[in-house]
């Protein structure tokens, strides 16, 4: 009876279970091999470095569950940052006015992706590969090779913690949005539309799912999240540059796939992505504080991904 329930749970959530076990293992091994790892102040402080990747993991999960990909998110971070910094330092617009505009700019850039994917029926891989270069290029046109500073009193959001805890502001934002995105994917009609679109877009369309509208909203949401990340990154670094956040989209996709979301769409949980993201963070932190060389860190993440995928597939016989 119990074993059959476990069996059913395993069949449904093998990847999530695998990454959860790996996360616990990574934590225990890191703490055991490296005493300097077990320092809450250090762990929470260092995790703020992954704020933007953690946030993008949430929206990327939705995109991939819908059977698509968004490679342009990190370019949107750089471009929105460039727009905001330019408006602030060259046109003197108050910075506090620009902060709420960041998700709006980001959302617009995401909607452009959505338009080409949903209305023009172009593959999202191609569209966002193009806008990845386009938005990065426009950021460089705006800023050149120079950097623009943000106001000093806006810098350092990652140093502000919730009273009496180690929870830095970006972590609080991330945890809140984890819950919001979990509810969005697993509890709302929009979330259902995303999943059925990912399972089979044509069947979804004939069942009355507004596929195009869902996709446009989804890419807009992805862009808006990148906009939020942009203002957080500006605060963390205190400076806008065209080459910030470059290459992070691959870290984001790695976390989503490691968390059990099918790259072909139709299957995935926010929980899996969140745990996979924490797993990568913990593994990198553990190796970092143990002084493991960068090339070995990269290799380990690659092996981890392969291992997790193999473990969850072999035993369930999932194709």
């Amino acid at each position: 009876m119990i074993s059959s329930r476990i069996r059913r749970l395993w069949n449904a959530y093998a990847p999530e279970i695998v990454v959860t076990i790996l996360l616990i293992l990574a934590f225990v091994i890191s703490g055991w091999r490296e005493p300097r790892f077990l320092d809450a102040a250090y762990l929470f402080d260092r995790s703020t470095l992954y704020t933007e990747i953690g946030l993008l993991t949430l929206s990327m999960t939705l995109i991939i569950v819908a059977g698509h990909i968004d490679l342009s998110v990190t370019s949107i971070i750089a471009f929105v940052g460039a727009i905001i910094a330019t408006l602030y330092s060259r046109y003197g617009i108050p910075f506090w006015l620009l902060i709420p505009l960041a998700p709006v700019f980001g959302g617009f850039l995401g909607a452009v992706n959505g338009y080409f994917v949903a209305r023009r029926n172009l593959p999202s891989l191609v569209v966002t590969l193009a806008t990845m270069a386009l938005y990065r290029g426009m950021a460089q046109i705006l800023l050149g090779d120079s950097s623009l500073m943000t106001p000093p009193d806006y810098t350092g959001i990652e140093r502000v913690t919730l009273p009496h805890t180690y929870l830095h502001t970006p972590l609080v934002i991330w945890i809140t949005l984890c819950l919001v995105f979990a509810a969005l994917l697993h509890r709302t009609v929009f979330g259902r539309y995303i999943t059925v679109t990912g399972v089979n877009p044509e069947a979804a369309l004939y069942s009355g799912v507004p596929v195009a509208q869902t996709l446009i909203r989804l890419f807009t949401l992805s862009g808006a999240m990148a906009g939020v990340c942009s203002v957080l990154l500006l605060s963390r670094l205190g400076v806008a540059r065209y080459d910030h956040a470059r290459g992070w989209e691959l870290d984001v996709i790695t976390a989503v796939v490691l968390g059990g979301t099918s790259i072909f769409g139709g299957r995935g949980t926010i929980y899996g992505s969140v745990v996979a993201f924490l797993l990568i963070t913990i593994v990198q932190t553990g190796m970092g504080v143990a002084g493991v060389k960068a090339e070995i860190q990269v290799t380990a993440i690659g092996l981890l991904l392969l291992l997790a995928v193999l473990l969850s597939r072999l035993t369930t016989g999932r194709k």
Partner: protein
Amino acid sequence: MKKLRFFLMAFGASLTLLAGCKPDTPPASPTATSATPPTTATEAGTTTATTSAPAGKVRVVYIPKNTGNPYFDGVVKGFEQASKEIDIDFSTTAPAQPDPTAQISFIKDEIQRGANVICITPNSVDALNSVFDDARAKGVKILTVNADLTGNESHRDGAILPTDFDKLGANQIELIGSLMKYTGKFAILSATADAPDQNFWIKGMKEALKDPKYAKMELVGIVYGDDKDQKSVTEAEGLLTKYPDLKGILAPTSVGVAAVAKVVESRKVADKVIVTGLGTPNTMRRYLKDGIIPAVALWSPPEMGYIAAYASFGMSKGDVKMTPDASFKTGKMGSRIVGKNGVVIAGPPLVFTKDNVDKYDF
């Protein structure tokens, strides 16, 4: 429903795992933690020194731009040389890619690992400001090596720069001038047309040429090889064709000078055209020994690392202040004077010839 329940349960579990409620007593400081006995595993792939430094030893780490860059291997050699002479525990680590923010996690990790001094060749002049501030608030000294945080000097304790770049142009003109006996036509083969370093040096060269000493030398042209081998070869061949009486080519770029040497060798004009510029001993050794080129100059990365190690040691012990006009001793390299903004110049460029090139390995 089941899905959600499972999700909430597991999510809660993971939060509990991570929940960091701050204890009322302050947690052990990084330095206190690092004083624990060195039980740390030295597993394969860890850096040379993973265990905690014994009391009294100064822990110095050097973070270059990225791994696998031979130039920075030279700097590391200098640090290693110095660490045999003074009581420092040296290690080096770097990100895989030279991205502007990639060094941040390495800095945080090294603070946690108990570094006393972090020497770094920064990938960004401003994105590292806040992590440098954190490190210094915890008593860790920050010393930039090879490049400075131009405009943000207040975020680091000092800087060790390879050579006095203001004088490099004049230095190069004197080098080619002495080789050409101060007479004849010569040309410059540079990197890209908008390379800031080379353009700054070329400005210095033109300035230096106004000296009556160089009155019989004529700069006939400047060409750009874009720091690409093939383009540099083509441009050098163009120069030789256009100016049959050319006596010298000055290439202040390591890619360029190697390409020009190759052209002079294949055209068999080494006895007529003098080639010199900036290049590393390892890439130019063959041309120097075969008599294709008489000499080539470059500042010495190992010397820079060596001096940075001595500066780090002194700063950590409190003997060296990186304030203008202060000075400190650097073992066999003599003493160095701290300049404006806490900048220390490692030394004038070294000149490599067939006689001394084997003494250098970088």
